[in-house]
């Protein structure tokens, strides 16, 4: 499962290895795949009789990606390579970046045999679309927000996470981070009193 999610984030967010980023936590994608796994595993909380269940979605999502990739390969829509990059990963992680995106796109368009997907995705087009979209968003929010900078505490319960360094995603795009304020006041184009006065006329 970890390998499949690594292959996923590798295809979605910029490769930190390629641009020479040395993460203090030494993970190629800054651990964004773990962010996805955490998010998916805490996404759906429901009640079944006495049990309040948080439905773990990460594992079935990984199976879904591998199954979809397998279907693409079997129908000649994608090409599998031997496993090198993501040891332990399934079919999804053996595809090229482009084919992984192709897989997500095909899933989103339900261009698959949905029966072969694991529960709760089996024949559940709405949930598939919803989750595939969420994978994209989670990956980007995980990468560009301060989450990776929680470093060794990043997988702690939310209230126990602590920023350990300046978020690299912010640094990369030039976001100064939380600010107290900016001296960029260029005046008021109009003011309420002015408009109200005009209206009274």
């Amino acid at each position: 499962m970890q390998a499949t999610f690594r292959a996923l984030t590798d295809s979605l967010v910029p490769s930190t290895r390629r641009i020479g980023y040395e993460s203090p936590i030494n993970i190629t994608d800054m651990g964004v795949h773990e962010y996805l796994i955490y998010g998916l595993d805490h996404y759906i909380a429901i009640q079944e009789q006495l049990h309040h269940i948080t439905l773990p979605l990460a594992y079935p999502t990984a199976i879904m990606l591998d199954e979809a990739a397998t279907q693409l390969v079997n129908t000649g829509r994608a090409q599998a390579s031997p496993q090198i990059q993501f040891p332990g990963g399934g079919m999804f992680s053996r595809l090229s970046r482009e084919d992984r995106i192709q897989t997500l796109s095909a899933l989103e368009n339900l261009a698959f045999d949905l029966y072969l997907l694991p529960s709760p995705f089996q024949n559940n087009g709405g949930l598939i679309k919803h989750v595939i979209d969420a994978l994209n968003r989670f990956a980007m929010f995980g990468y560009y927000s301060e989450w990776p900078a929680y470093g060794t505490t990043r997988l702690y319960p939310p209230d126990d996470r602590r920023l350990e360094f300046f978020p690299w995603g912010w640094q990369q795009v030039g976001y100064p981070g939380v600010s107290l304020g900016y001296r960029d006041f260029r005046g008021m184009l109009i003011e309420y009193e002015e408009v109200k006065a005009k209206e009274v006329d």
Partner: protein
Amino acid sequence: MKTDPDVIVIGAGGGGPVIAKELGELGIRVLVLEAGPWYGNKNWPNPNENRGEEKESSNPNDLDGALYRKQITRLENDMNDFVSGKFRWGSADRRRGPWYRNIPDPTILWQTAGIGGGTIHYYANSLRAFPHAIDNEWPINYADLIPYYEKVEKTLPVEFAPTTSKEALFYYAAEQSGFSLNKTLDVTSSGYRPQPNAILPPNEHLMDPNYSMEEISHMEGCTLSGHCGQGCPYGPTYEKMAKRSTNVSYVPLAMKTGNVTFRPNTFVTKVLTENDVKRGKRAVGIQVRDTWTGETEELRAKVVVMAAGCIETPRLWLNSELPHNPWVGRGLTNHYMDMVTGTFDEETLTEIIGSPSINPFVGHTSGARLDYPGLGMIENIGESPGISAQTLFAFSEYGYNSLGESNQEMWESRGRLVGSELEEAMKGYRRTLTLSVITDDEVQFHNRVELDPHVKDEHGAIPLVHYTPSEKSKMRREQLVKIATDMLRKAGAKEIHRSDLPPNYYIHLQSTMRMGYVVDTSCEAYQVERLYIADNSADYNSLGGPNPTLTTQALATRTAEHLANKYF
């Protein structure tokens, strides 16, 4: 409260605290129940970690600006992570999952539980509805609303946004596209203007280098710090925070009346009714569940006000098995939004705004707008990087840019950007101007909140939400996107990206319990006496495009008056 309140208000978001304050000032005793936590109240020093010793708070002295500042970290993930952020839609305890909604489509649903509700992370855009969308549409007139708009504008207060770089560029772009400045609060023709925002004007010392930012952030007035969406804890005291979320505006005012009690961490699961032989069904109370302990309780009052939002209000109606009305939960509008982002080069920017970057993170998150009655509106948005990446480049009904048709006439890229494309786009972050397209979307019966037939959570059957725009709404969005694209192009943008957002983007939710269908003109339910609604759900339509909060607050002010006259 030791005895039954006169009125129970469900939800302390955009509308609930307003009606509570208004009723409290009339001497009516109000209990407000809120499902989420309370930030900045001494009774809950660690609101996400434990239940606290108190159940409720009614004393303004409990409010604590320093505590609020500590809790509102303004870190985008800590605050706005949909799963575990402080501003998520879920219980105070962030170790648990959020409250599940079944939306079987690509979806962003940006709701907040907690005292202040969605106004904790809103951009404070507080404009009036377009008059044409009210007159001859709603069962009441625009003129009826004006005094209430004025009252809310004064109470919050609302002021036009100051200009920072991104607004300056926006105004330039609008002028280049042939629009002119519209100096009005009541928009009848197209034009641009600063956003009327519920944000205090910048402190007079903001530009004075003799004052440190630390000092200024403890003074009254906006510091232009950006990240409005991550919460605003800047100001001398809790009730003087610059961004006028209801938790720092109406909630303290309500508490000062001495008649209003707020109770967080309390999820209302049912509206209780009685059948009166003569007058039919009437509301007599509610059933609640403590989100920390799971304990349930019944509370009684003379009048119940639902202000739980466009999803929870109909869900509550349906889970309470109130009388059948086909329009309950129906007619959902969400302004069918889109985003267009232009990236500029340094020379162009230097020429127009005198600096080589826009720095979208500076100033009010949304400080300028273009109104276009008949189509909707366009506003600028400057979000932090994570949220920008997620909404601009990850969320699209177009699919992946790299898989799309290469022949894009209007935009350099469209849809999702991944890998190195994403990296390139984000590298230009400081030189981007993002325009949000907000459509005057039509009410459609099929757009709805209903109960999921299969799935329950601890509060009953969960809501299932469905939205697809009408052909007319699609056309309007396309026209607005063209205008936005044109503005960016005319202003000199080098690369323009269209996100092409999916229709299930929920920031503005409206009109699921429409006036004239579910509630009467005083916002009392037709079929259940003594049951009122005071949130966006009572809107008859999507207001022509304007952000819904101010109208909800004006209506809530008006509803308080009607309610008090009728029952007290």
